[in-house]
């Protein structure tokens, strides 16, 4: 079960013609797919479209009713390859993933698909993880669509526009025999809004029909001579057809304004922020009426030269508002105007930053700059500059950065503590990181991890160090990345190349970083997927001999010793440690309600949590540097003499026991204690406790006599 359940919300997907649908962007996309008569959907999770995968998973019943096949693909490459069903058959298919990383993984299949072209509509929904909060390299998917000739939709970020883009996207794909990408920015995926629904459609042609009457057409396969023909087709047929379709169906939008001699050309996804900036400058209202004409590119590739020429014909200056780099659109605009000999001056990256997210603040500044040059009369006096009072800038030093980290009780934490302890004994090691929650180890307090080369590529990232006699690097790999490609790219590769590598596979039972989706080795049972497959068996299956599975990562001493063994063992070939403990976030979500229920029904329940004695804590916080648990915090020292804050354990503690293990294994301090709180104690508990209490208080009275005897007067 994923982190967020959409079981209730997916019922909205049944809404019919004329009903008003309220909900998140990703739900709207799902509804649009159903309204478009999609036949199959697949994808791979990753922010910001993780929730789209979760919605689809939770909506499986509804999908089945409509005959839609939905798969959680093994990787983005699998998802992209599944679009092969649309090559020969009039079947509409949709796939989804996080871009640009997912697009990179899918690139082989995508390029093949784009070369041969499609019969049924093929829609690729990408969650563009660019800007604030992003966890990936900042690149544009735009470059990819240009090189493969895939059309790119970037609709205005309101649900009606997004739904229309899905529906028109399929039509465009079919008309131009080309796969179409729908780019959704991170906030658009999660925007809560509304649109008027239509009835869901069944696919007119079914997957069963396709399998009963298989079709083939060699000219669709990327092999000479067809491969050369495909390129000609792309530029000679598919492109012009797409441009015609876009113009005929008015996929791009022009908004007129009173200031005819200037204009803004923008990506659809930026429309709302641009409008708000114009409104702040007094040049537009909340309903989108702008004094400056706008040309909104809901399709950013291919461009429609005629539309652009028409828009720019009577303008002295236009501003191209294009997020990300390189400035493909601006270059294209310059080229189009030059060839048409139009004299409108093109501004773009000279007013706006070349790189980085176009936030409201950035756009406001960029528009001001453009208007100062092109139409200074439109700027109200004083609107050109805005400064913050100095006191607020001082805050910059006081507000601490808050990097992401492991959750309270995370089973991955002890693995990195163990690496730190091993480093103390054996010296520093090179650690090849992977993608997943575990990459937080590269941030404070662990600061472990030298590189990260991509999902599942932790072990692959250390292959060059296959040098005999050298200190072995440690590779990290998550269970998600392992099944995604790590089994072959990392483990099998090490077996084949006879590498004495050390790989730690972190098996927390879920694709945890993306929201707790099930994977092949999840322990949880999932009615529509096969789970419970063993990582150890898979690893042994490709020929690894040295495998240790630790079923409790919190056993720090064992983790440390196993790592040490792997690093020093004289045995040849790769060493694989499978570190298995369930993701605490998921475990708590499952167990918490059960525990509450048991306590309320009067059953005896023992709950554990940890604490720190502020009396004995001297405020060194070595414990925090070896843990970083959010529940392990500090407070001002209650001791008036001690200068430094003391550690304490917050109530959010889930009793994983890591801090105690650290205190033991690293020989830190005697301040940690484990408290077992017994709810609904039984008679035996009570008797024993009261006997202990009597004994202990009696001794305490004796022991503390001297404290009363020597008490000082206060003050």
């Amino acid at each position, binding site marked *: 079960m994923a982190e967020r359940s959409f079981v209730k919300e997916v019922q909205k997907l049944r809404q019919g013609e004329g009903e008003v649908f309220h909900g998140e962007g990703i739900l709207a996309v799902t509804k649009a797919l159903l309204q478009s008569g999609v036949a199959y959907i697949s994808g791979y999770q990753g922010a910001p479209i993780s*929730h789209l995968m979760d919605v689809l998973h939770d909506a499986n019943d509804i999908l089945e009713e409509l005959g839609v096949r939905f798969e959680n693909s093994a990787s983005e490459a699998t998802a992209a390859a599944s679009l092969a069903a649309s090559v020969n058959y009039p079947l509409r298919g949709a796939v989804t993933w996080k871009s640009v990383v997912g697009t990179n993984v899918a690139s082989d299949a995508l390029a093949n698909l784009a070369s041969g072209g499609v019969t049924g509509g093929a829609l690729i929904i990408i969650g563009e993880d660019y800007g604030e*909060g992003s966890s990936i390299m900042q690149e544009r998917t735009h470059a990819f669509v240009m090189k493969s000739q895939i059309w790119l939709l970037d609709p205005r970020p*309101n649900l009606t526009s997004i739904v229309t883009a899905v529906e028109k996207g399929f039509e465009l794909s079919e008309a131009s025999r080309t796969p179409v990408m729908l780019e959704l920015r991170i*906030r658009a995926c999660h*925007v*809560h*809004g*509304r649109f008027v629904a239509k009835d869901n459609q069944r696919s007119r042609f079914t997957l069963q029909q396709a399998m009963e009457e298989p079709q083939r057409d060699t000219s669709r396969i990327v092999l000479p001579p067809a491969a050369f023909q495909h390129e000609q087709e792309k530029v000679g047929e598919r492109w012009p057809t797409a441009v015609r379709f876009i113009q005929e169906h008015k996929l791009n939008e022009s908004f007129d304004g009173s200031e005819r001699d200037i204009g803004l050309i923008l990506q659809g996804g930026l*429309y709302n922020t641009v409008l708000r900036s114009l409104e*702040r400058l007094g040049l*537009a*209202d*909340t*309903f989108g009426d702008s004094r400056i004409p706008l040309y909104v590119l809901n399709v950013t590739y291919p461009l429609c030269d005629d539309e652009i020429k028409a828009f720019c014909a009577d303008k002295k200056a236009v501003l191209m508002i294009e997020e990300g780099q390189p400035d493909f659109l601006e270059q294209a605009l310059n080229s189009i105007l030059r060839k048409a000999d139009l004299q409108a001056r093109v501004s773009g990256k000279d007013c706006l930053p070349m790189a980085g997210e176009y936030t409201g*603040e950035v756009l406001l500044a960029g528009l001001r700059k453009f208007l100062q040059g092109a139409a200074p009369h439109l700027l109200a006096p004083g609107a050109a500059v*805005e400064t913050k009072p100095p*006191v*607020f800038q001082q*805050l*910059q030093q*006081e*507000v*601490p950065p*808050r990097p*992401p*980290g*492991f959750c309270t009780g995370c089973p991955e934490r002890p693995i990195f503590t163990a690496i730190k302890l091993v480093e103390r004994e054996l010296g520093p090691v090179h650690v090849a990181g992977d993608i997943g929650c575990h990459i937080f180890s590269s941030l404070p307090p662990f600061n472990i991890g030298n590189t990260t080369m991509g999902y599942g590529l932790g072990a692959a990232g250390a292959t060059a160090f296959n040098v005999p006699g050298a200190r072995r690097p440690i590779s990290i790999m998550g269970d998600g990345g392992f099944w995604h490609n790590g089994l072959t790219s990392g483990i099998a590769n090490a077996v084949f190349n006879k590498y004495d590598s050390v790989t730690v596979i972190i098996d927390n039972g879920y694709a945890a970083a993306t929201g707790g989706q099930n994977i092949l080795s999840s322990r949880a049972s999932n009615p529509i997927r096969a789970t419970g497959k063993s990582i150890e068996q898979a690893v042994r299956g490709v020929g690894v001999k040295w495998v240790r599975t630790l079923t409790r990562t919190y056993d720090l*001493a064992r983790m440390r010793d196993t790592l040490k063994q792997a690093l020093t063992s004289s045995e040849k070939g790769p060493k694989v440690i499978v570190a298995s403990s369930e993701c605490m976030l998921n475990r708590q979500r499952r167990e918490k309600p059960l525990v509450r229920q048991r306590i309320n029904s009067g059953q005896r329940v023992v709950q554990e949590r940890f604490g720190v*004695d502020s*009396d*004995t804590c*001297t405020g060194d*916080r*070595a414990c925090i540097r070896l843990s970083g648990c*959010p529940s392990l*915090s*500090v*407070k*001002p*020292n209650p001791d*008036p*003499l001690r200068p430094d804050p003391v550690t304490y354990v917050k109530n959010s503690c889930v009793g994983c026991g890591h801090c105690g293990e650290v205190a*033991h294994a690293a*020989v*830190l*301090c005697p301040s940690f*204690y*484990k*408290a077992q709180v*017994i709810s609904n*104690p039984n008679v035996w*508990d009570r008797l024993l406790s009261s006997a*202990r209490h009597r004994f202990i208080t009696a001794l*305490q009275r004796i*022991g*503390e006599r001297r404290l009363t005897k*020597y*008490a*000082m007067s*206060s003050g």
Partner: protein
Amino acid sequence: MATTTRPITIAILAMGGQGGGVLSDWIIDLAERNGYLAQATSVPGVAQRTGATIYYIELFPEQVVRQVGREPVLALMPVPGDVDVVIAAELMEAGRAINRGFVTPDRTTLIASTHRDYAIGEKMALGDGLRDHSKVIEAGRQAAKQFIYFDMAAMAEQHHSVISSVLLGALASTKALPFPRAAYEEAIRRGGIGVEASLAAFATACSHTDDRAGGPANNEPPPTEPAAAGGLHPEVRALQGRLHELPSQLTFYATEGVRRLIDYQDPAYADHYLDRLQTVLECDRNHGGAERDYELTNETARYLALWMSYEDTIRVADLKTRSSRFRRFQEEVQARPDQLVQVTEFMHPRVEEIGETLPPRVGRWILSSSRARKLLGYATRRGRFVRTDSISGFTLLFLLARLRRWRRRTLRFELEDGRIEAWLRQVRAVIAEDYALAVELVRCQRIIKGYGETHARGLRSFESIMNFVDGLQPGTGAADLVRRLHEAALADDEGKALRALLTELKQKPLSIESA
């Protein structure tokens, strides 16, 4: 233009796991049920894992939408200077909002919980890494049109609810949104999770907001033992007499020091402390201490008391078995009266701790005999679990604490006593030529803390600074140098920064002059 109506804009700044999403959902529901169109966005992803994140909501009256006949264009992210309500689920997140320009005096209602959830950078510092929160409150007062702040986390905890309900209550009380209180409560009810607790927390927050006395809870005053019914013990009275004779600037630390050392050992030990302090005070007086408020003696009063009450096994056992400690952990784990609490200590005494608790001769023999070390080493390889709430576990620690009587005859006492004397000698030696340097030397005691290896590392750092100072000409810049070394010693776990600085200073003795 169709209208001049503007949306109501709301930014919620929270940390992953704080429930910002719940609050956002309540506000959406509240608005949609009360004649407003709501658009909300967030940036989930890795920030959900304890990082800082922003939820952003815009509300627009449906009536105007109907009049115009079109959907309004609402923004997906807050723009500086254009936010009506900023809700910060933690004090520094309020600081972040102010810093980013979301809070402006012409329009912004700022609602902030004043509790601190320390960032990892603050928590992991070896010294004191906590940031100054008072600046945030001050900035909030200047930046916001209306500023509501109090410890909302504490209030939520009182009601066994989440901070979101308190934040919503505070929002309702500001009347920044055009909805009646009952509408908020309806939204909570429709949310359907933890309704009763949420409503209670909401109601308290609604009525609380007049109280502006907020600010993070400060540390409580040190607990004072009640004076014995029959008046003071003669030895204690004598100590208090000595305390009265000290210059008044020293009263606070010296009194705390005496109190601590009686608690640690006995009145005679506290008397010894005052003797030592007296020798420092005399030096201090002779070198113009009166004009400096006896800074040297005052710092010595503090750090000498800490050093003299070093944490040995006896001290730990004593503190672990106190009745006050039993009361404290009951409170800390928030056990209800009908619940029982069992306590397990995580202890890991090393050979050193055992050897040092023995008489010097025996202790030294054990620590120097490789066979004895090996034998004991085997026994102490693993950490020990001690159930302090059980009869056997408690008795063990109780008896260990009774060794207090023999503390003066332990090896550890001898070692620490020697180190303290050496330290004080060095302080007294430099004061004549460099008062500031003497003060800095006293403060270096702060580096020695913790247990086991941590303590040993602190001691090594301390000693390397003292050795460095030994070869140094007191005078301009020496105090600054020691301060820098002190900071370097607290910069990292492995003493890297300190070693690097020491090497640098030894190579370039001239920098002493220029510093």
